């Protein structure tokens, strides 16, 4: 099969993303590398990134699984909710 990046794969999904409002509140100032590392490894959509010592998060492409909430609620993940109705990812296969 041809190799695809995570961006390519997410591009196949249907999203009605609320680009302005993130349904996940993240402490972007954190310097807790161990905690960051877990999220970078676990997030199936690669919403959490750590490149050259720079931590970043984007809710665009979030698959709403809840993994980051379970791993880091109260730490890096300050608040987690589902997107508003009619927003977020929509599966046509599932």
């Amino acid at each position, binding site marked *: 099969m041809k190799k695809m990046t995570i961006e390519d*794969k997410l591009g*196949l999904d249907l999203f009605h993303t609320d680009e302005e409002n993130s349904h996940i509140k993240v402490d972007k100032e954190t310097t807790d590398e161990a905690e960051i590392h877990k999220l*970078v490894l676990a997030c199936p959509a690669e919403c959490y990134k750590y490149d050259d010592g720079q931590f970043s998060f984007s809710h665009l492409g979030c698959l709403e699984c809840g993994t980051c909430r379970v791993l880091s609620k109260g730490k890096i993940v300050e608040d987690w909710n*589902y997107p*508003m109705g009619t927003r977020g990812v929509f*599966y046509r296969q599932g």
Partner: protein
Amino acid sequence: MSEDKFNAIIVGGGLAGLSAAIVLAKAGLEVIVIERGDACGMKNVTGGRLYGHSLEKIIPGFAQEAPIERKVTKEKISLMTETGSLDIGFSSDKLSSTAESASYTVLRAKFDEWLAEKAEEAGAEIVPGIRVDECITEDGKVVGIKAGEDELFADVVILADGVNSLLAQKLGLKKELEPAQVAVGAKEVIKLSEETINERFGVTSDEGVAWMSAGDPTVGGFGGGFLYTNKDTVSLGVCATLSDIGYSEVSVPKMLDRFANHPSIAPYLEGGEIVEYSAHLVPEEGIHMVPQLYGDGVLVVGDAAGLCINLGFTVRGMDFAIESGRLAAETVIRANTYGNFSAAALSYYKQLFDNSFIMRDLDSSKGFPTLLTRREIFTNLPDMADDIAAKLFTVTGEPDQGIVMYIINSLAEHTSATDLVNMISEVLEAF
């Protein structure tokens, strides 16, 4: 939304919620299902395989009309190393031979949409595109739900809002999930043609394969890989237990890439085209994570109640979801005849639950969550299997030690006697 009061509000239009809706509506109760997706099924993901027995009770012969993918007639389990795979396959006309024993591969967007139609036909109202923010309580009793500025009231609220169940947590029925209790599943749906699937997997168009594997898919971490054949697609995924994230430096998306490229998987997918990528949490602690199932005016069903069993060779959740929805509905029907929706009246759900196959099976597999946190299963065992099988099936003309020595040597290399005895005793306990 309507100002009227309903008999029941169901939060979440997945299998548990829709099953409850069908049973309630058929009994003539006024029921509304509130779903945050644009349609039922559009937020839902399965591996997946549905064991049909519990839906048979609600819609006999459902597989004749439901959009199932294939009936599972071939089982395969594998212990995988980076380059090898020891496989056990089973195909028999005993598999899926009756409606009650049949299992089917399904895709939830299509399947749940169909079940939602059945709920509407039965008389349930379905309102999609709305996220429920909280339950409304009066003196500790749940009396309705709030979504944005809208409020809606009912005698009882059934929480079928999935594995994260923020609503059950807010009500204190359920604790926050622990990383050891859940696995993250990442899945690709890969398009092949129906004929290609038939040829490569050795099945007819109605028949399908369920293939579970452990070891390399999660790079030795707790979890596993799965492959299910759909009509003209294949569902390929990995599940990784959250408490074991970081065991290897391979991320979950990379695990899935690695699995797809494994030498024993890749040939099946050759020429395939990914059409969707999805992810979902899977409750994996069985009986140990079942929450408080009822309260004043409220019931919890399906994934929201953590109802799932992972035995490694089979994974069940959807049949539990459907049955729990049905039992919750039976409880509400009974409560309605007495006009009493107190916690005491709704504790009937717990009684039904405890006497159902859900509790029986959760109980009989209560040792599995512990067993499936034995590192040996995900690292040593696949390596040993690879070692022994490679020696067994290789002929070089050099002196041969014989199978017993292969096994003894491999055991000595990969594990200690104490660890082995511990593991065997946990295996025996689990079964």
